């Protein structure tokens, strides 16, 4: 076993223990330590990715060397390591982008706890990505829930943030309750918790036709539970409050990464636990498809009506999650690949928009209302530039990241050749138009000269400039040289079976 193969397990342990260590450090020490851990995880994930790409096959890492039906395992493939690298990298950039807000928004003696939560969140995201055991998945889903809710709640001065946390937490708990009962029923009918063993039993059950009804109930429970947690359309009501009222880094992390962790788990369950053939035959994907289409339209319309920049971005997330569910709902391998691409694209774009929004708030007296933000793009030019890049990417202009995933969504929709093709293409067209309808007015507001005198401007922290430049660079890189990433995603999905 090569040394680098140990790294996925090590990164989970490193981040988990990082949470403990950060809780006893002072604020700035915790900041340094968490940055160090995230850098290490990023480098390690990239090394593992290179290793998996060169060997061309996934491997299973046994915990404590107990073999398959008894022990706990993590599984490392191309897609998993890509997601791990993406999550740790974006986490790092989001933290850097909103660092000064973190210290303003938390209580002075408790700013180290923010980094504790970030470490726990990273650990749970990594574990969700890598785990090969459903119950471990559930435990880390709950850790993820607590950490992400606390990231909203930690902005203690705002009553709205507290209320948003309550809503977010109860919806999340509902979701994880449904997920847990799904696992329970699945364990009852298969007798296993490891994904491969379940998949074998499920295939046998499906062939013989026994327990057909419980099996469909399980599929519904998994899809519902994880759709609630990833804010799919009818369950999105908690999202704008939570993402709109949190501190800048929290908003970036929650919209860019936390939602994606759950969706990735759902894709993994579809592929590796239930098996894609069964999912297609049960028509579970059709429901997700309809939810996705509705989310794309409703989210965009709600975003047009918003008078608050952060809430507008949050509603835009609802629409973008709709794109991802549309890709999954197409029910083809190409559709899933497009959904994975959109996960990546949205994860590198939305945090950039939120970070830029933090920059605008700095130069507009801390307000996020459009009426106060007039001309903010001129006062903070780099944030303005980043906002333009992000908006173009979300609308889907060529040479920006968003274009790539939209192209693949469209082509996979065309390949389906059914009623879904027409609906998906129409939804994509309308939603692109609607995206332009709220991003362009927002840009116009940000770049018109204000009537009143601007408030005093203090210099932008270096970390934030660096993070914005990195985001912009990533966006162009993804937009112009996407082919290797696309190939890796397709290879990674093929590896799932």
């Amino acid at each position: 076993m090569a040394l680098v193969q140990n790294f996925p397990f090590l990164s989970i342990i490193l981040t988990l223990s990082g949470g403990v260590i950060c809780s006893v450090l002072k604020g700035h020490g915790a900041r340094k330590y968490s940055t160090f851990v995230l850098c290490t995880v990023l480098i390690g994930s990239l090394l593992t990715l290179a290793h998996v790409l060169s060997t061309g096959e996934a491997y299973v890492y046994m915990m404590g060397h107990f073999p398959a039906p008894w022990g706990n395992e993590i599984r490392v493939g191309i897609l998993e390591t890509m997601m791990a690298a993406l999550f740790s990298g974006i986490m790092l950039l989001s933290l850097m982008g909103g660092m000064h807000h973190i210290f303003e928004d938390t209580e002075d003696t408790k700013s180290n706890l923010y980094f504790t939560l970030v470490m726990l969140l990273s650990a749970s995201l990594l574990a969700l990505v890598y785990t090969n055991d459903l119950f471990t998945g559930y435990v880390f889903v709950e850790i993820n829930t607590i950490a992400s809710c606390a990231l909203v709640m930690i902005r203690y001065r705002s009553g709205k943030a507290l209320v948003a946390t309550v809503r977010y937490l109860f919806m999340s708990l509902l979701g994880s309750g449904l997920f847990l009962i799904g696992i329970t029923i699945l364990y009852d009918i298969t007798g296993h918790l490891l994904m491969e063993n379940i998949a074998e039993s499920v295939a046998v059950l499906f062939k013989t036709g026994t327990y057909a009804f419980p099996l469909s109930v399980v599929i519904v429970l998994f899809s519902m539970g994880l759709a609630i947690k990833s804010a799919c359309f009818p369950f999105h009501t908690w999202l704008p409050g939570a993402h709109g009222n949190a501190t800048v880094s929290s908003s970036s992390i929650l919209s860019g990464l936390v939602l994606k962790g759950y969706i990735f788990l759902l894709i993994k369950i579809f592929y590796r636990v239930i098996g894609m053939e069964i999912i297609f035959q049960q028509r579970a994907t059709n429901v997700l498809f309809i939810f996705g289409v509705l989310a794309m339209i409703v989210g965009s319309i709600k975003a047009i009506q918003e008078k608050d920049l952060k809430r507008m971005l949050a509603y835009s997330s609802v629409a973008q999650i709709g794109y991802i569910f549309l890709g999954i709902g197409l029910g083809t391998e190409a559709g899933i690949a497009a959904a994975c691409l959109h996960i990546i694209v949205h994860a590198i774009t939305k945090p950039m928009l939120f970070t830029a929004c933090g920059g605008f708030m700095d130069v507009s007296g801390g307000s996020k209302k459009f009426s106060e933000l007039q001309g903010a793009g001129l006062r903070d030019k780099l944030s303005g530039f980043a906002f333009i890049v992000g908006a173009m990417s979300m609308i889907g202009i060529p040479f920006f990241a968003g274009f790539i995933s939209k192209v693949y969504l469209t082509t996979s929709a065309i390949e389906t050749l059914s009623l879904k093709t027409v609906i998906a293409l129409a939804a994509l067209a309308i939603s692109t138009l609607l995206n332009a309808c709220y991003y362009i007015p927002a840009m116009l507001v940000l770049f018109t000269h204000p009537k009143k005198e601007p408030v005093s401007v203090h210099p932008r922290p270096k970390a934030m400039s660096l993070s914005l430049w990195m985001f912009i660079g990533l966006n162009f890189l993804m937009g112009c040289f996407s082919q290797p990433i696309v190939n890796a995603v397709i290879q990674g999905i093929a590896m799932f079976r």
Partner: protein
Amino acid sequence: MAQLFVNYYETVAMIIFSIGFTTMLLNRNLIKKIIGFNFMDCAIYLFLACKGYVEGRKAPIIVNGVQSVEAYINPVPSGLVLTGIVVSVSVTAFLLALTIRLYYRYHTLDIEEIIVLSKKEED
């Protein structure tokens, strides 16, 4: 119908689950919401635990040397229940802490009132 009485553990678990589910979603009082959440989780643990139980067998604790596999119940669901209880305890603690903060701020436990009050606040 007869199956509901044969599998009465599961039936009771599902009834408790729906009671907890509706309380958590529909009740306006935050404390009652939390109680509803605990009902919901406990129902799942009941369901899980009774799935591991086999009529007439003992808990897998070795007293007089290992007997045959037929002598013991399935211990895995019990382990899962324990893990689940730990999770729900920590979530409950977090929810209660959040409730305390909200109560200090708004002096009420009614979530609808709290939402109305928070909307009036400046950011």
